[in-house]
C-alpha cells in the first residue's frame, strides 16, 4: 500500500506533465484541468502517507552496479515535506488557473510545475543518496525553466541561468557526499551512512560534512549563495510561492536535518551551520528593509527565515527547524500568492507606486495581513510558535552571540513586514493604480492557506511523535501539543522576543521621529541595497570566465600551419612528459 502511495505521489504529477504538454496549447481549459487534477491527486497520495509512517524501506527498484537500488522510506522528515510540496503545489496550481490565464505557453508552464512537484516529493522520500542527487538536480532544472519562463525578458533568462549555475555548483557538494558513501560503504543508503559515518577517516567525514553544508547553503540561498533567490523573482508568482518559498529552498534545510546525526560531532561543523544561519538571517533582513520591489522583500524574507531554520539545526533543534519549516511554507506561500494577486491586478511590483490598495482589494489585504503577522511572529499564529521554539532552543543550546543576533533579526522582521503591509495596502495611493480583488481560484488558494497560517501549529504534537517514532538516528523527544504550547508561553525567550518584535513595529511606526538614528545607518542601507557586495562578486566571476574564454579563442586561429604546429607541440610535450614520468617512476 505504502509503495503504491509513494510511487503515485511521485509519478502522477509526471504523467500529468506529459498529458498537459500532449494536449496542446490550443486547449487551455483542459490543460488547467489536468494540472489541477493531477496535482490534487498527488497531494492526496502524499497526505495519505501520514497514515503509514515508518523508518523501514517501503519501496525498492533494483538498478544495480554503480547506481545502487532506488529506495524510498516514508519517515517523519520525508512525509511532512512531501505533503507540503504536493499540497501547497496543488494550491499554487489552483492559483495559477487565474494567474496564468491567457498565457501562450501554458503547456510548458504546467509540465514544469508538475515535474517539479513529483521530483520534490521524490527528493524527500528517497533513502538513496544518488537518487536524492537526481531529484535535487531535477528540481533545479524545473526551477530554472520556470524562473526563465518569460524567455523574452532578458532579466528572467539571466535570473534563471544564475539560479541554475549556483544551485548546480552547490549540488557538487551533494555529489561528493554520495560518491564518498558509495566508495566507502558500497551503498548509497542514507541509514547505512548515518550508522557508519563515524567509521570514516575524520578528514574525509569533515570534507563530506562541509560539502553538504555548501550544497544546502546554495540550494536554500543561504550565505554566501543568497544572491540567486531575489533574481529568481522574475518567475511567475505561483512559482515563487511554490518553489522559492515553500518547497525547493527547503531542500537544503532538509539535507542538513537529515544528515545532522552524522555530522554533529565534526569539529567546527555546527558552529559553521550557526554562522551561516545567523548571517543569512541578519543580512537578508537588512536587505528586505531597504528593498522596494514587493517580491524581492518576500524573497529576502525567505532567505532570512531559512536562516532561522539553519540556525535551529546548528544548535541541535531539528524538530524546531522542521516545525518552522512547516509554518513558513504555509505563511510564505500565502504571502507570495497574495502578493501575486496584487501584482496581477495592478501590473507593477514596485511598492513605491502602490499604497492604499487595501480599499480596492480587501480580501487580499486581509489574507496578506494574516501572513504578515505570522511572519512577524505574533502570538497564536503559526509563525509565533515555531519561531519561539527555535529561539528557545537557541538560548538553551547555542552560543549567546547567535541568540542575540537572531533576536535582532526578529525585530528587523517585524519592521520590514509592517513596512511592506503599510506601503502596499494602507496610506494614500501614490500613483493612480486600478486594482481589483482576486479571482475565484486565487481566493480559494489564499483562503485555504490563511486557515493554515492560523491553525497549522496545532499539528506540533503529532509532528513530534511522528518524528520520534520514525527517525532512529535523530533522538527527537516528542511532546504533546499542549505541553509545547505551555513551554513556549512560559519561556523567558518568548517574552524577550515579543518585546523585540514590538520595538520592530515601533521602529516603523515612529520612523520619522527616529530619523536621526536611521540617518546614521544610511551607509549600511546603501550596502544593503547593493546586496553587501555579493552581486559584485557574482558579476566578477561571470566577467572573468567570459574573458578567459574570449582569450582562449585565440588558439583557434583557423590557419592550417598553426594547427599542425599544435600537433607537433603536443608531440613534444608528450615525449618530454613520458620521459620525465618514466624517470620518476623508475
Amino acid at each position, binding site marked *: 500500500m505504502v509503495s503504491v502511495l509513494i510511487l503515485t505521489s511521485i509519478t502522477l504529477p509526471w504523467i500529468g506533465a506529459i498529458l498537459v504538454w500532449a494536449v496542446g496549447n490550443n486547449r487551455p481549459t483542459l490543460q488547467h484541468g489536468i494540472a489541477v487534477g493531477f496535482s490534487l491527486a498527488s497531494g492526496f497520495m502524499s497526505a495519505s502517507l501520514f497514515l503509514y509512517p515508518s523508518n523501514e524501506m517501503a519501496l525498492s527498484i533494483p*538498478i*544495480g*552496479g*554503480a*547506481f545502487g537500488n532506488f529506495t524510498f522510506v516514508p519517515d517523519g522528515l520525508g512525509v511532512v515535506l512531501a505533503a507540503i510540496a504536493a499540497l501547497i503545489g496543488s494550491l499554487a496550481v489552483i492559483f495559477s488557473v487565474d494567474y496564468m490565464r491567457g498565457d*501562450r*505557453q501554458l503547456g*510548458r508552464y504546467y509540465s514544469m510545475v508538475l515535474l517539479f512537484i513529483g521530483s520534490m516529493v521524490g527528493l524527500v522520500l528517497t533513502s538513496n543518496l*544518488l537518487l536524492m*542527487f*537526481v*531529484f535535487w*538536480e*531535477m528540481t533545479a*532544472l524545473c526551477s*530554472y525553466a520556470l524562473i*526563465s519562463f518569460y*524567455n*523574452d525578458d532578458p532579466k528572467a*533568462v539571466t535570473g*534563471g*541561468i544564475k539560479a*541554475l*549555475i549556483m544551485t*548546480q*555548483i552547490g549540488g*557538487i557538494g551533494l*555529489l*561528493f557526499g554520495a*560518491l*564518498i558513501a558509495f*566508495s*566507502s560503504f558500497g551503498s548509497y543508503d542514507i541509514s547505512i551512512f548515518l550508522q557508519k559515518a563515524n567509521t570514516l577517516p575524520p578528514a*574525509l567525514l569533515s570534507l563530506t560534512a562541509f560539502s553538504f553544508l555548501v550544497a544546502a547553503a546554495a540550494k536554500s540561498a543561504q550565505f554566501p549563495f543568497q544572491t540567486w533567490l531575489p533574481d529568481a523573482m522574475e518567475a511567475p508568482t505561483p512559482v515563487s510561492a511554490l518553489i522559492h518559498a515553500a518547497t525547493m529552498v527547503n531542500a537544503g534545510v532538509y539535507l542538513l536535518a537529515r544528515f545532522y546525526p552524522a555530522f554533529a560531532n565534526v569539529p567546527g561543523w555546527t558552529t559553521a551551520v550557526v554562522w551561516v544561519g545567523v548571517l543569512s538571517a541578519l543580512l537578508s533582513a537588512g536587505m528586505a528593509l531597504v528593498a522596494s520591489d514587493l517580491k524581492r522583500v518576500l524573497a529576502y524574507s525567505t532567505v532570512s527565515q531559512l536562516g532561522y531554520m539553519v540556525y535551529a539545526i546548528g544548535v541541535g533543534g531539528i524538530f524546531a527547524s522542521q516545525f518552522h519549516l512547516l509554518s513558513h511554507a504555509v505563511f510564505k506561500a500565502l504571502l507570495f500568492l497574495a502578493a501575486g494577486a496584487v501584482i496581477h491586478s495592478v501590473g507593477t511590483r514596485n511598492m513605491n507606486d502602490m499604497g492604499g490598495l487595501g480599499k480596492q482589494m480587501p480580501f487580499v489585504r486581509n489574507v496578506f495581513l494574516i501572513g504578515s503577522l505570522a511572519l512577524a511572529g505574533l502570538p497564536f499564529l503559526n509563525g509565533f510558535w515555531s519561531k519561539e521554539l527555535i529561539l528557545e532552543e537557541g538560548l538553551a543550546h547555542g552560543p549567546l552571540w547567535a541568540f542575540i543576533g537572531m533576536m535582532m533579526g526578529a525585530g528587523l522582521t517585524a519592521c520590514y513586514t509592517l513596512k511592506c503591509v503599510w506601503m502596499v495596502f494602507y496610506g494614500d495611493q501614490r500613483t493612480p493604480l486600478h486594482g481589483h480583488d482576486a479571482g475565484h481560484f486565487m481566493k480559494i488558494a489564499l483562503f485555504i492557506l490563511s486557515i493554515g497560517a492560523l491553525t497549522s501549529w496545532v499539528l506540533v504534537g503529532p509532528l513530534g511523535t511522528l518524528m520520534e517514532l520514525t527517525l532512529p538516528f535523530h533522538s527527537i523527544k516528542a511532546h504533546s501539543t499542549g505541553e509545547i504550547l505551555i513551554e513556549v508561553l512560559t519561556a523567558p525567550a518568548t517574552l524577550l522576543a515579543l518585546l523585540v518584535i514590538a520595538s520592530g513595529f515601533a521602529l516603523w511606526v515612529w520612523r520619522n521621529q527616529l530619523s536621526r538614528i536611521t540617518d546614521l545607518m544610511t551607509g549600511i542601507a546603501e550596502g544593503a541595497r547593493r546586496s553587501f557586495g555579493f552581486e559584485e562578486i557574482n558579476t566578477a566571476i561571470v566577467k572573468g*570566465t*567570459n574573458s*578567459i*574564454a*574570449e582569450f*582562449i*579563442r585565440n*588558439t*583557434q*586561429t*583557423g590557419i*592550417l600551419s*598553426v*594547427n*599542425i604546429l*599544435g*600537433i607537433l607541440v*603536443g*608531440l613534444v610535450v*608528450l*615525449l618530454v*612528459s*613520458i620521459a620525465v*614520468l*618514466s624517470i620518476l*617512476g623508475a
Partner: protein
Amino acid sequence: MDPLTAFPALILTPLLASPIIYLVGRIMARSGKMTPVVGWITTFILTVTLVPLFFISQAYSNQISIKLLFGTIALRVDGIGVLLAFTVLVLSSLVALFSRQYMDGEPGEEKYYALLVAMTGTIIGLGFATDLFNLWVWFEAMAISSVFLVAFYRSQPGSLEAGLKYLVQSAVGSVFVLIGIALIFAATGHTDLAKIQAAINSPTPILLTAGVCFVIGFGVKTAIVPLHTWLPDAHSQAPSGISAMLSGIVIEAGLVALLRTLGMLAISASLWGVILLSASGLNMLLGNLLALRQTEVKRILAFSSISHVGYMLLGFGAALITGSLDGAAGGFFHLINHALMKGLAFLSAGVLLYAIHLSHDRHTPLTIDDLNGASRHYPLPALAFSIAVFALGGLPPLSGFMSKWQIFVAGFSGQNPWLMVLVLFAALNSVLSLAYYAPLVNRLYRNQCAGEEKGDVPISWTLLAPLVLMTLAVIIIGFYPALLNDLTYPAAQDFLKIIR
C-alpha cells in the same frame, strides 16, 4: 544464423553495398529522375546489417570465438567491436533516414549515401581489427570516406576549407600512427596486437615513443587537445547528418583505436592512464570555454564534443590506473550516450537549419539568433534539441547524467585524491557547460521569432522520426541505465582483460 557466416556478412554488407548504391544512383541520375530509391536502399541496408550483428553478439556471449582470416585481413569478435558496430549501425541508419529529405536534390546525392555506407563499413571493420596494420588500413579508409563527406558542399568555400584542414591534419596523424607501427614492428617483429603484448617484457624507450606516436596519431582523430583544431570547422560545415556521425562515432572510433594500441602497451598502463587523465582535464575545460563564446549553433555542438571526449578519457584513464570496471563501462556507456545525445542535437539543429536556410537554398550557418522563437513553428525539433542539450549538460533524468555518474563512481573507487579532484573538476565542467546550453533552450521558447516570418516549410516524417526515436532513447536510458549493460559490460570486461 551461423556466426561464421554472420561475421563476414556483417563486414561485407556495407562495403559491397556502397559501390552498388553509387552505381544505382548514378544510373538514375543519368536517366533524369533522381528518385528517393537511393536513400531508402541505404536506410534498409544499414538497418538490416544489425541482424548479423545480433547473431554475432549472441554467439559471443555464449563464449564462442569468432574469427575471420582473409589473406592479410584478420578480424576477431569481442565486446568492444560489438559495441562500436552497434552504435555506428544505429546512428547511421537514423542519419540515412534523416537525410532522405535533408539531402533531397543535392548534387551528388548518390555519392553521399555511398560514402555514408562505406564509412559505416570501415568503422565496423576498425572495431574488430586485431592487428596493427589492419587497424591502420580501416582507420585510413574511414578517414578517406569521412573527408569527402565533410567537404560535401563543394560549392561552398567554408566546406572545402574545413575538408582540407581535416584531410591534412588527419594525414599528419596517420603519419605518426605509421611511425608508431614501424617502431613496434622494429622492436617486436609482430603486428598482431595480442602477440605484441605477449612479446613485451619491459617498457623500453622505443615502445614508449611508439605509444606517444599512437596517442598523437589517433589523438588527432579523437580530438585530444591540442590536436583538436580541425574539429570545429569540420563538424559545423558538414551536412547535419554527417556532423552527427562525425561527433557521434568517428571521434569515438579514433578513441577505440587508441585504446586498442595502448592496451597492447599495457605494460605501462598507469603511465598511459596518467596521460589520458591529463588530456581529459584539458579537453573538458577547453571544450567548454571555447564553446562559451560561440554564436553558431553547430560550432557550439562541435566544441562540446571536444569536452565530451574528455569524459570518456576520464573513464578509460581511471580504468587504466585503477583497473575499475565502472571506469571502462562508464567510458563505453558515455560513448553510446554521446552518439545518441550529440546525434540528436545535430539532427534537430539540422531540421531547424533545413527549415530556415537550406530549404531556401542558402548555405548560411545556423546562428543562435535563428533559434529565437523556433519552438512556435517547429515544436518537435525544438523539444528534441532541448532534451539533447540538457542530456549533454548531464541533467537527470536523462542518459548523459547516468554515464557521467558511472565514470564519477569509478573515479572515486579507491579514493585516490588526484582522481577525486579530477572528478570534481569534471562535475564543475558539467555545470559550466550548462552556461552555454541553457541560453539556447531559452531562445527556442521565446514568444517572438527572429526577424522575418519563418513560414511553414513542410517537414516530412523522415526528418522527425529519428528525432522522436533518439529522444525516447535518451529519456528511457536516463530512467533505466541498466538497459545498455549487455553492451557496455562485455566491452569493459574485454578492455580490462587486455590491460591486465
